[in-house]
């Protein structure tokens, strides 16, 4: 199996020569088509790992293998308020260098996938939080990268919308067979979505838990809570 992303003892520090590492000796291989979730307390470096994959940060030490193009969904959506829903998606595809016809067909395709066709001419401020994140997902998909990064994309949404988006994201993942790496601060979310969960503590990858629950998963399932507890125990050093 091909590994689109391989970290080999990657470390990152903001001050050269300093011993304070934001990410330290991070080694991890992510499988193609895998849904990988990074969890950990605030400031543990999980978002920084995502930034390294996105090319927003350069490792101070170690090696990383990653595709040149990666799509990313941001916590705040990061949509451009002066562009319509359609143009926000098309903009990313256009910057990727695709032809006009391809930009149009990709935009139409992903607008449909995130179920926002009737909102194509609306502006971001006219959308709900959930709809904005859908646009963010469509935009990240439109550049046709095999890897999709998600930085706590649902943390600002209400539980009902989050549940809806979880289901939609899983459907999109199954349809597109993308490799998804998501940062979350909710263990339940990670167990619900991920194949494997990476638990981070103070810049280091503490351990990896494979979620063995069959899909589709539901929080009401009796096997769900023990799985959550298993991850929590590692997280809290018990």
């Amino acid at each position: 199996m091909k590994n689109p992303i391989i970290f080999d003892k990657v470390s990152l520090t903001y001050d050269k020569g300093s011993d304070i590492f934001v990410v330290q000796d991070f080694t991890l291989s992510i499988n193609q088509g895998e849904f990988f979730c990074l969890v950990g307390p605030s400031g543990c470096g999980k978002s920084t790992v995502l930034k390294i994959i996105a090319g927003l940060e350069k490792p101070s030490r170690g090696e990383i293998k990653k595709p040149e193009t990666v799509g990313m969904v941001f916590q705040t959506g990061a949509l451009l308020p002066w562009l319509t829903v359609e143009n926000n998606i098309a903009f990313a595809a256009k910057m990727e260098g695709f032809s006009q016809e391809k930009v149009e067909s990709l935009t139409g395709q992903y607008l449909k996938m995130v179920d926002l066709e009737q909102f194509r001419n609306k502006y971001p401020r006219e959308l709900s939080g959930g709809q904005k994140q859908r646009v963010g997902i469509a935009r990240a998909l439109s550049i046709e990268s095999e890897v999709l990064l998600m930085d706590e994309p649902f943390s600002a949404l209400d539980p009902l919308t989050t549940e809806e988006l979880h289901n939609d994201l899983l459907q999109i993942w199954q349809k597109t067979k993308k490799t998804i790496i998501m940062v979350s601060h909710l263990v339940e979310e990670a167990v619900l979505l991920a194949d494997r969960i990476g638990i981070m503590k103070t810049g280091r990858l503490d351990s990896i838990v494979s979620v063995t629950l069959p899909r589709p998963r539901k929080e009401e399932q009796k096997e769900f809570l023990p799985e959550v507890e298993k991850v929590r125990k590692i997280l809290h050093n018990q």
Partner: protein
Amino acid sequence: MSKIKHYHHHFHFSYQTTIKRHLASIVGVTITVAILIFLIIHFANPNNTFNINQISWTDIFLASINTLTRLFVAYIFSLVFSIPLALLITSTPRVEKILLPIFDIIQSIPVLAFFPIVVVFFAINHAFELAAIFILFMSMLWNLVFSMVGGLKAIPEDVKSASVVFKVHGIKKLFYITLPAIFPFITTGSLLAWGQGWSIIIVAEVLHTYIPNGMVSQDLLGLGSLLVDSFAQGKNSVFLATLVIMILVISLLNFVVWQKLLHFTERFRFD
């Protein structure tokens, strides 16, 4: 059959709109070019001599056009200079640490303090018009620069990251992300700049007070000089008429340009 009809109707409709659009753009371009030619000719041979004892409505009209043109030219220059300056200040934290205090000091020195030197310098070269525009430019520049710096610093981190992830670099970044993102700040900065310009115009056109042994005839015809000179000569009716026209022009500008622009900026604001 109905399909053909529909198609024909649609075709006809779009054909008509295209013609209308073409006509509208031709008319628009013609008017703009005509105004530009008028302004260039007018400014190349400025009719700045005026007799304060014989001021007609035509003179006040001409004065309004002169003043507006001076403000507009100075504004365009300050806009063109302020964008790279603001980008330079915010380029790296280190540059900002050095440049921001320097610019802060420069902008807090009152523009009018060095106006006499500017006037004398330009007067030697008989470029009175440039003296006025230069001083207006200096008074407008900093409002724009500091508004833009505020705007650049208010661009959300996620949006900056998104522009890296989606490969928006260089000139594309400037036109597709940076300038639209700071558009509301450019607008408020421009509003302040024009306000400042209107205050300074009262002085910028009255050059004779800054030239050693200067005479009223050395003043530039404009709303500012009309106000000052008519008041000094006790021409109360000219003073009042000029004041009313000035208020009208400012109100019209506010209504036609600034209110519309401010409303339009809503679309460019981040949540």
